[in-house]
């Protein structure tokens, strides 16, 4: 159900992109909507990454080996509930991020000029704030389930200074609609993102 609707949204988006790209654009109209890309089951558990983060390139839409962690090949990386960005103390890139609350993936089209991109820093300070109900997720102490906060997006400046919006959709393997703490495998990132390759702040 969830999958098929995501697929439908994807197809619709792709259609819009195709349609938009056929029409002639000029400088005064906003850039064409970026394509929404879905990524499933990025395993961030330290057991599988030998204690390293699971690195990902938003530009190329593919995982990056941890051996490339000191390069600008990656943009975002995951280890359990912590998300780092290639910049600040986390990497050599130009990356930064902030958590945008109260919007939807489709509605968020422009990074406003007064937005501040935060950098990862020492002492457990991250551009994507950690903690339940502080950043991208909340933890339910009764069910022990971690749920991405609906309406929260990660607005990311990539290692090479481009912009992306990222929405985590599930923290569990296979993205079950109703994760059960006894059976669901946590630490698996499912997310979708829009990457603006032209360097503008428009999606």
């Amino acid at each position: 159900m969830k999958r098929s609707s995501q697929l439908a949204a994807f197809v619709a988006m792709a259609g819009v992109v195709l349609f938009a790209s056929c029409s002639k654009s000029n400088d005064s109209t906003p850039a064409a909507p970026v394509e929404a890309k879905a990524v499933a089951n990025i395993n961030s558990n330290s057991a599988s990454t030998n204690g390293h983060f699971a690195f990902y390139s938003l530009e190329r839409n593919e995982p990056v080996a941890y051996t490339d962690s000191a390069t600008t090949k990656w943009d975002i990386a995951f280890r359990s509930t912590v998300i780092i960005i290639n910049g600040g103390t986390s990497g050599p890139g130009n990356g930064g991020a902030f958590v945008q609350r109260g919007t939807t993936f489709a509605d968020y089209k422009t990074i406003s000029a007064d937005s501040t991109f935060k950098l990862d820093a020492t002492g457990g300070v991250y551009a994507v704030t950690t903690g339940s109900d502080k950043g991208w997720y909340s933890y339910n102490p009764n069910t022990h389930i971690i749920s991405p906060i609906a309406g929260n997006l990660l607005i990311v400046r990539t290692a090479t200074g481009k912009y992306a919006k990222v929405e985590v959709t599930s923290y569990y393997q296979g993205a079950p609609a109703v994760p059960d703490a006894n059976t669901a495998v946590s630490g698996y990132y499912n997310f979708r993102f829009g990457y603006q390759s032209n360097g503008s702040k428009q999606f």
Partner: protein
Amino acid sequence: MPAGNRMPCSYQLIHSYMPKLKLIGMHKKLFLFLLLAGAGKISIAQTTDSVAHNELDEVVVSATKTEQKLGNVAVPVTVISKKTIQQNGSLRLNDILAEQAGLFITSDYSGTGVQMQGLNPDYTLILIDGEPIVGRNSGVLDLSRISITNIKRIEIVKGPSSSLYGSEAMAGIINIITEKPAVKTAAASVRYGSFGTADINASAGFTKNKFNLLLQGNYYRTDGYKLNSSSTANTQDPFHNYTLQLKAGYAFTPKTKWTLSTRYFNETQNIKPYSTKDASGNTETYSSNASIRDINVNNTFEHRFSEKVKTNLRIYYTNYKAETNQLYLYSDPSKNTTFYDYFEQNFTRFEDQTDIAVSHNSTLTAGAGWILDNVKSNRYDEKNIVTRNNNIGYAFTQYEWKPFKSWLFIAGARYDYNQRYESHLSPKLAIQKSFGDKLKINASIGGGFKAPDFRQLYLSFTNTAPGTGYTVLGNSEVQAGMKQLQQQGQIQNILIDPATIKELKPETSTGINIGANYLVSKAVSVNVNFFRNDINNLINTGTIAQKTNNMFVYSYFNINRVYTQGVEAEVKYQLCKSLQLSAGYQLLYTADKDDLDKIEAGKVFGRDANGQVYKVTKSDYKGLFNRSRHMANVKLYYEDQKGWFANARSIFRNAWGVSDLDGNLLLNRGDQFSNNFFQTNISVGKQFVKGFRAQVGCDNLFNYKDIRFMPNIPGRIVYATISYSFTQNQK
């Protein structure tokens, strides 16, 4: 049989085959004598032709702490009689409460509790003869600790009752009234049913001259059950418990009486080692030993100075002790872990209450008391069992005034001084207007409060179970606890500076109840009550720091403001002399007011069942978790002159919110809800002359099971009971 309907010599009938019965502390000959004395003098409980009328005449004590007719208390009170408990085949307190409209039985690792007027189990005070039961686990007092096979009646007062009872009586109180010694009494019963569940009772008592004595014993055991047949673990493991009660009284003079009431409860649950295999094929062997013990001793001195002045001095002591030892063994012995939990609470209370008949139409009640409360537990220190104390002093007063025949006013207030948190004043005002004999309108407004408990102040707990590792620090422990964690290098990130965390305040509420009792005809009565409770400073957990293991440190804060409101209705219809039909219903709306504000501001988003993110509107918001909007019951009771009785009771609760799935921490469309719950219980039996009685019944006739949301419901239960009872109330 309603208390107002006294017969010169009545024998209540309870229970059974004597051969294996051993009465504790009672001479065999005496018992035999009682047995013979009872023979041939038996009369069968009268069926009443107008239940509604008699009910309002029934005397209750919980609503005003004075003896009052049920029809004259101006607040919502429900009485469950011994007869109802017997005919329903209820064994534990939760069994009978589950069948009352507006009471929602909750069940989780902390025990079986009751939600009243939409408020959590933490906010209902549970009393035996007016004295509180202690030993709550995460705020829940486990109702299954209380055997109700030997009691006289249960009184349920809904709405804030802190003006008389102090802390915890925010949603209301449930008072279990025990049997009083009669001239001669003896009873025994045996019940056996599905899941190897047995319940055995025996009691005997007498009154001689100025002295009276009553001994009661109950034994309960069950094999437990397993809802998931492929699992090696039981859903409910076997356990057994027993309750012994001794009541003694002495009348020094007709004006001065002493009563001693004691209760001893002991429950043991030993889980034999059983093994499970994890995903990698490693074996984990689990075993556990757990015990719970309860001691209650209540000394009451009553003295009547004159026709108009009466005083009651009560000295009450109760001790609750729970101990759990768990052992996890792995194929790799270095991973073996143990879990040990110790919790003991000592509660001592001195109270005096004086009732003064100021004039022919007004009564003044005044009382004061002092409570010594202490707990010993390893939950407050990682390695040691430590003691925490609290002292509470209080005074209360109440004035009942009936200026005209049709008007009744009750005003009261209680002031609680507490060593550990700020003092609190709880007022209450109740008014009743009668319109002839048929209609009574009640309205009341009252304050309720709940003091922070020992857990919220002193807990210092790190969960070491596999996959966890979080820490919870009580309000008084948060600075020291955080300092220690920081020194140990366990803190990655501080989210709230411990120095800025304020002292916890009591949770407070204001409750309004407006209702009516209407006798439509001799055979039909209608009871309606509207309620609204506004609660401030609700205590909840919040994160204060992140640990290096990425888990969090939690503490307690006064954060939430919530309301619960709704209407409860009950209709009783005496179809014919031997057949009564009743129906009950509760409609409930609840909300967190701060969440509502956020929704109005358009700040809350949700994820629907299709994974689409949407802006949550008021109509998407579903109120507080774990609440049923609709609860209903229908009951049919049959009872004839020949002693036959039969009944069928159905209860319904519509789906309640279980958990948040979209990370916004509130309940909205797209979150997880339970299934609708429906259960029907039936029972049939015969009361024979000479005090014997036989009964068979089936609870959960349609075998409702729901392993996810109702793991406390084992499935269909079939049982049979035989009993014998003999009571002589007058010489």
